[in-house]
């Protein structure tokens, strides 16, 4: 049959074929995509044919809710099929697809740096004149512009849902101790003092997990360090030393109103401990509520804003855009895509989303808010909300770890100097 040489050469040829294919797989992938796209465009021009849209979501918690809404949409629009895609590490996937010019039809993401990058890349549709934008909360709208660029005026994504961070509190214990919701920093500390005097723990810090430190940190920073910090710092006009000193002091104050193993407890420990009444307050976001209720379904919860300042009217809280909808500028099926997006913003559907996902609506006309978050309502309506400032920190700037180190050793001057130095290094690289 084969002689030895022939056999080897066939094998080697096969090896090279595999290598060559692997080497240019991106082009092969694109080519097949293009042909698929062409087919779709052809078919969409025929009336009555089915258009398929890809809804690419970067959030892993809500695909079931999307699917329920998509089912409803498909029932109303038999010509449009929507496929919900939610995969791990989706932001990286999105960035990769941007470089391949292969953006999904509908993008559901948050107010994150990747969205900012897409906005700056100029590949997204400009929604500035869309009627949908008129109903959006001005605080959230400010964020989606700001994340794209410091003085951006165009809207490249329509905010849909937000999350809030602040202070979760145990209503039963507040009543028992005769406490009221504090609206200034001094009142806040007074409440904490009263709780300690009653022999209870004011806050259950879970600072073994460094990210949980950024929860109160962010609330303090937006009120104290100023909106323009990231921009000014990068331009060399602001430093941590002059803007963050008060933030650092207040973090130390909060640290001391807690249990005695602040850096030994994790987020999961904290949810359980707070649910079981081991502390009266808990510095967390609304996203922790489902986990807390799992440990204790009967807990009476409430949430108020962390009053970072002594001027009650000035206080803002961190509420970030958790979900926004956007689409590519050169969409293949612009009409069908817009139809789906408009459907999502209809009051009934948006309300269903907010209820199921325990989220804050970004639309002024969708007024549903879970009773737990009732005290946030006024600030929300006034637009006194800001994006988490850590989102503006440059990539490779180890903020959470540095803050954790500082809270352990308490050396403020060294900490602020290190923050300045690390920021400059991260920007330079």
């Amino acid at each position, binding site marked *: 049959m084969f002689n030895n040489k022939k056999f080897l050469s066939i094998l080697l040829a096969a090896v090279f074929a595999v290598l060559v294919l692997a080497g240019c797989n991106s082009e092969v992938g694109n080519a097949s995509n293009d042909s698929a796209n062409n087919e779709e465009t052809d078919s969409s021009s025929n009336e009555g044919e089915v258009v398929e849209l890809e809804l690419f979501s970067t959030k892993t918690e809500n695909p079931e809710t999307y699917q329920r809404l998509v089912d409803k949409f498909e029932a109303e629009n038999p010509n449009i099929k929507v496929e919900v895609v939610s995969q791990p590490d989706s932001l*990286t996937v999105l960035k990769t697809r941007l470089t391949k010019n292969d953006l999904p039809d509908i993008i559901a993401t948050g107010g994150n740096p990747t969205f900012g990058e897409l906005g700056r890349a100029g590949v997204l549709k400009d929604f500035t004149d869309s009627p949908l934008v008129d109903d959006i909360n001005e605080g959230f709208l400010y964020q989606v512009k700001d994340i794209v660029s410091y003085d951006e005026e165009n809207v490249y994504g329509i905010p849909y849902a937000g999350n809030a961070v602040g202070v979760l509190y145990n209503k039963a214990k507040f009543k028992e101790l005769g406490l009221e919701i504090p609206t200034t920093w001094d009142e806040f500390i007074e409440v904490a003092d009263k709780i300690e005097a009653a022999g209870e723990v004011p806050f259950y810090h879970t600072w073994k997990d460094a990210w949980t430190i950024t929860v109160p940190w962010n609330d303090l920073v937006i009120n104290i360090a100023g909106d323009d910090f990231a921009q000014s710092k990068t331009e060399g006009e602001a430093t941590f030393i002059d803007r963050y000193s008060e933030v650092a002091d207040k973090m130390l104050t909060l640290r001391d109103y807690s249990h005695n193993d602040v850096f030994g407890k994790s987020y999961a420990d904290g949810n359980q401990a707070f649910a079981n009444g081991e502390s009266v307050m808990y510095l967390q976001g609304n996203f922790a509520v489902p986990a807390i209720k799992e440990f204790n379904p009967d807990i009476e919860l409430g949430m108020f804003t962390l009053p970072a300042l002594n001027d009650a009217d000035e206080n803002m809280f961190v509420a970030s855009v958790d979900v926004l909808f956007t689409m590519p500028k050169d969409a293949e099926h612009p009409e069908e895509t817009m139809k789906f997006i408009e459907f999502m913003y209809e009051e009934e559907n948006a309300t269903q989303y907010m209820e199921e996902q325990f989220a804050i609506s970004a639309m002024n006309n969708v007024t549903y808010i879970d009773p737990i978050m009732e005290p946030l309502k006024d600030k929300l309506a006034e637009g006194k909300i800001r994006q988490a400032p850590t989102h503006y920190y440059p*990539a490779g700037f180890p903020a959470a770890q540095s803050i954790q180190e500082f809270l352990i050793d308490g050396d403020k001057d060294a900490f602020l100097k290190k923050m300045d130095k690390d920021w400059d290094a991260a920007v330079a690289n």
Partner: protein
Amino acid sequence: MAKKHTFYVMTIPAMVLFFLFQTYPTIQGIFYSFTNWKGYGDWEFVGLDNFLRFFRDDRTQHAYSFTFGYSILSTILVNVISLFVALGLNAKIKFQKTLRAIYFLPNILSVLIIGFIFGFIFSHVIPELGASLGIGLLEKNILGNPNLAWIGIVLVAVWQAVAFNTILYLAGLQTVPMELYEAARIDGASRWIEFWKITFPLIAPFFTINVVVAMREFLMAFDHIVALTNGGPGTSTETISLLIYRGAFQDGDFAYQSANAVLYLIAIVLISVLQIYFLQKREVEL
């Protein structure tokens, strides 16, 4: 002839897969370490910038010193303990097989599960024990203390690694001929002398392989650190692998971390070669 074909069929696919999934990415990584690639998008060559940046990066230097300290200490502990356990398990004792199975158990458990179980022990069991015994130092989770967290990490790493190294030492001990012990006993050698003059020299090849394997394993530490401390508090327990992963895949610092990985690869190869060179010198043959 036909036989030879079969061998090619058996070996070449493996070579192709190895090349595709190991060699090719390695070369790619080395290539990107000379660029400013972010993991996606455009890039340009930056020469040796990434390698020079290494020398002014405190975080990376700290990761190196932590990883080396941790690896050396853990390697010593693992080898001492597993040799000790292997000697015990090799003796004629009751339940020998059962005990061997039990000592091997940690090796088949997933590192993440071990990490979470020990995480629970450190954050709940030990502090409660400390509180009830009145030992102040134990009342807090040691993983939350930048000066003590490494102890917890070494403890868990050693606990798991001992299982595998014990098996290797056991295999080594089986190769020592019984006649030597009988002869030594007739000459009146004590157990201590027996160990140092017969057992240890004769299992030296296994000692070499154990030291090299254990050290390499610890130098690559990643998963149980993620499960226990995630590199914290601060960056006090951040290993090089964890830093490379975070920097490259979370912070978009792909090119710099590729350079870091290249340096680290060179360091690991050097260490392994040196270890083998020095340890093999003292191996004896019967």
